């Protein structure tokens, strides 16, 4: 069977299933990435301006979450999370399994992992900022949040976007690990297809193409964002 008929969109083809799985990959990665952005900027902020204790905690967070295999985080979140919820539920009534949805657990796990990476990206970008411009913001009486929103964030993005692009790719790939929670994303769908039809190449090639399609769209987005963020920067 040729790869084209294998991947067709008819009832005998895997095309629809693969595209749907790509959609799952995209959405779980995007949710995780956004959660990670929030966590990452908070952690970066703590690292840059927090007290000794807070900085230590933030440091431990990034070291541990970047340091351990992502699969472990996902396991702990999914199975650990269910165990905790189940035992809480057990207090109120007859024991039973309280499921954390695979999608929610996956997005949360990707979020807290990519948050650790994003915090480093943000911190690095912050150190590249022109101190003088921050002082100018202080000198007009901007309070921290306003300064963050109006001056720091737009400029941090300038230097952070290439790094964030990398983390986004990472989140996209991490979504493949979420399959242990039963979520059928692109790589799991490929493995299912490969195992069921014994045609691994066709499936992995199709997966590669779909990943590239996602990357095409997202790198176009990142390029647009970069052009925008780099406005007003003189290049030598």
């Amino acid at each position, binding site marked *: 069977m040729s790869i084209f008929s294998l991947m067709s969109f008819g009832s005998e083809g895997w095309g629809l299933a693969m595209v749907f799985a790509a959609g799952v990959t995209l959405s779980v990665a995007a949710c995780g990435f956004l959660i990670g952005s929030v966590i990452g900027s908070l952690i970066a902020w703590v690292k840059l301006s927090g*007290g*000794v204790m807070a900085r230590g905690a933030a440091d431990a967070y990034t070291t541990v979450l970047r340091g351990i295999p992502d699969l472990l985080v996902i396991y702990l979140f999914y199975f650990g999370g269910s165990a905790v919820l189940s035992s809480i539920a057990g207090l109120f009534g007859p024991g039973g399994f309280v499921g954390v949805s695979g999608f929610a657990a996956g997005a949360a796990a990707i979020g807290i992992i990519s948050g650790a990476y994003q915090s480093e990206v943000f911190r690095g970008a912050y150190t590249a900022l*022109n101190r*003088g*411009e921050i*002082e*100018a*913001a*202080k*000198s*007009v*009486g*901007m*309070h*921290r949040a*306003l300064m963050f929103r*109006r*001056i720091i964030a*737009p*400029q941090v993005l*300038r230097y952070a976007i290439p790094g964030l692009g990398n983390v986004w790719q990472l989140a996209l790939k991490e979504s493949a690990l979420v399959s242990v929670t039963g979520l059928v994303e692109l790589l799991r769908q490929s493995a299912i297809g490969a195992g069921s039809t014994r045609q691994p190449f066709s499936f992995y090639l199709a997966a590669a193409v779909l990943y590239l399609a996602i990357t095409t769209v997202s790198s176009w987005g990142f390029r647009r964002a970069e052009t925008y*963020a780099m*406005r*007003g*920067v*003189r290049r030598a």
Partner: protein
Amino acid sequence: MTLLSTPAVSVRDLRKSFGSLEVLRGISLDAAEGQVISILGSSGSGKSTMLRCINMLETPDAGEIAIGGEVIALRKGRHGRTEPVDRGQVDRIRSRVAMVFQSFNLWSHLTVLENVIEAPVHVQKRPRAECIAEAEALLTRVGIVDKRNHYPAHLSGGQQQRAAIARALAMKPKLMLFDEPTSALDPELVGEVLRVMRSLAEEGRTMLVVTHEMGFARDVSSRVVFLHKGVVEEDGPPGEVFSSPTSPRFRQFISEHR
């Protein structure tokens, strides 16, 4: 000099060191409302540091700063460093004080016009349309209204300096701190900027101006302060200090000026 009302800014025994270098070694200074004080001093004498302390961009090691009668509360923080007790207070005071930096420090991601309206719109929360109109008037006054949609990186040095001046003026501050505001300007523009500053003084705004322009110090300012090695060496009305300086160091300093 007798001060009739609360001084617009009052500095008492200000001290500041960087590492082992004592930059300010006990500076005291009062400026009444509407006064224009020229701060002279050789390079490295601590002029910028003093202005930056007044605006709390550097926290003084010791001393007291009061702006419009309100003392900025300081405390010894962790590691023995001084820090403001209340950041809110600092932000509030700063929004009434404008500063023109020696290195301009325009926000590079905003156009000239956006730079000028940033603080009025977002800090002082004034209506945007009104701010834009005012900003354009200011930019016209300093002669760069045609550059309003340019980013700072695409301006000449003098244009950047004028944008920075416009940004400070747009806040309509009670107190203005100018750090060499005409260093990058040609004589014609210097004249124009000095005219603007004079009219501001007449409106009753107070100004501390670090400058190397003896002409400005002599003709525009109501008082001249000469800093040397972190202390005030000379302080008085320009007529007095230029004709009969008490400090030999100041005499030498002005002797070079042709």
